[in-house]
């Protein structure tokens, strides 16, 4: 089986033992969404939205007794490979609990946390690893574009979904379509604050994902500061950010909107009600700052749109 660049990016961060078993298992990486490595426990994969164990001789199985057990050596080698033998270069990321690797895949880390002056200093013994694979689904946002464009202007939009629900994938495709232009929409300058390198998946500053021809990216930059920087430096028509929530993010969004820019953001949640219950975001909902809410669900598969609402909470579309 041929291994594509995308597959290889995932494989090359795994220990050689696991890597060889994965190659033997003939996995379609487009259908693989998650890998979980826990010390002395079976290796679990989320494949086709179902949970499987990686078999000891290289196949996917649902039987625990046939599963490959992750060793301390597997974890150690994987951590070395994830950080490219340079864990020191990812101190901040490790403190936050995850590292984004080439291709935009997010690697969550857990283990023994060391504390200094009441704050997390580091994760000392990394013994749990969760690899979430990023998938570029070109065209997935095409159906929502007509709902977020009015008179050629992009409406302030909030994409809502639970973790792993496809909001970053949706945001990335919206950015691409808005930047390149699509049916009924002329291309616009888009500024992306990619705090976790998940939207554009920049490697040494160059985007690995297609985010459009008129897109400028601030990679690994805190969202609030990044939004203000982009306004000052790149004069974008649209600003896109992933996973907003902090007080600083909310203030920055208010500033962006007052500067005449459109904002497209994502947030964790299941519905608009969830957002209304979040202290900072509640204010933006009440003030009707966002003109469109796109709620993603799993009814028609990951990333399917379950509802689109306007600023008053009127449903404009559902289940498509």
């Amino acid at each position, binding site marked *: 089986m041929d291994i594509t660049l995308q597959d290889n990016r995932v494989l090359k961060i795994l220990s050689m033992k696991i890597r060889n078993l994965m190659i033997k298992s003939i996995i379609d990486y487009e259908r693989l969404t998650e890998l979980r490595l826990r010390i002395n426990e079976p290796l679990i994969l989320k494949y086709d939205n179902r949970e499987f164990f990686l078999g000891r001789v290289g196949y996917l199985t649902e039987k625990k007794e046939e599963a490959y057990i992750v060793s301390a050596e597997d974890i150690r080698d994987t951590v070395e490979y994830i950080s490219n033998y*340079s864990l020191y270069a990812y101190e901040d990321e490790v403190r936050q609990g995850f590292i984004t690797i080439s291709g935009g895949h997010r690697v969550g880390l857990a283990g023994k946390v060391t504390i200094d002056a009441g704050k997390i200093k580091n994760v000392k013994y990394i013994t749990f690893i969760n690899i979430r694979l990023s998938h570029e689904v070109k065209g997935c946002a095409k159906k929502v574009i007509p709902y977020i464009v009015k008179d050629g202007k992009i409406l302030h939009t909030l994409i809502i979904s639970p973790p792993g629900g496809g909001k970053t994938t949706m945001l990335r495709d919206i950015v691409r379509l808005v930047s390149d232009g699509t049916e009924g929409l002329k291309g616009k300058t888009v500024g992306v604050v990619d705090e976790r390198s998940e939207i554009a998946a920049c490697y040494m500053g160059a985007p690995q994902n297609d985010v459009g021809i008129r897109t400028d990216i601030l990679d690994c930059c805190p969202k609030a500061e990044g939004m203000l920087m982009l306004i000052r430096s790149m004069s974008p028509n649209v600003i896109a950010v992933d996973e907003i929530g902090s007080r600083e993010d909310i203030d920055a969004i208010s500033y962006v909107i007052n500067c005449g820019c459109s904002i497209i953001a994502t947030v964790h949640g299941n519905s608009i009600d969830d957002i209304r219950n979040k202290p900072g975001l509640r204010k933006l909902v009440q003030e009707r700052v966002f003109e469109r809410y796109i709620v993603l669900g799993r009814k028609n598969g990951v990333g399917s749109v379950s509802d689109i609402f306007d600023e008053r909470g009127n449903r404009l579309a559902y289940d498509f």
Partner: protein
Amino acid sequence: MVIFGGIAAGIKTSFVMKKRFNEIIELRKILSWLRGEISYGFTPLAEAFSKLSKRTTPVFSDWLISLCNRLFVTEDGDFSKIWEEELSELSKNTYLKKGDMENLKELGKTLGFLDVKMQLAGIDMEIEELDSKIKVMREELPGKQKTALTLAGLGGVMLAMLLI
């Protein structure tokens, strides 16, 4: 012929000493650039080696490129093993002595491990070691080169006399 042979041997010894001195200075430069890459940019080792390879002499450049390639491939287990193997390759193409290599080997045990402070401490220790070698060599090298030339020349003359 024998006299010229002796003189040639002296010149070669002197040349090797000078080459080793230059290589130690180059190595010191590489380490201080590496220090900068780590402390200023938090640059991962593979990326730092790739950048440094473009700024140094061919011997070290080839070594750094080879290191960088092996780190990118991620097939060879832990860093210190790769570092050690690549050092033994470097030793085939360099004038550095066994002792110089042993110090570099030690550095491989701290690189890539733990936090930035640990990296810098390891590099600083090696730089300190190189600095003291450079200082001693700077003072002693001209004298040693002269001695090597003189001894080799005299040796050649004596051997020639014996043969006559």
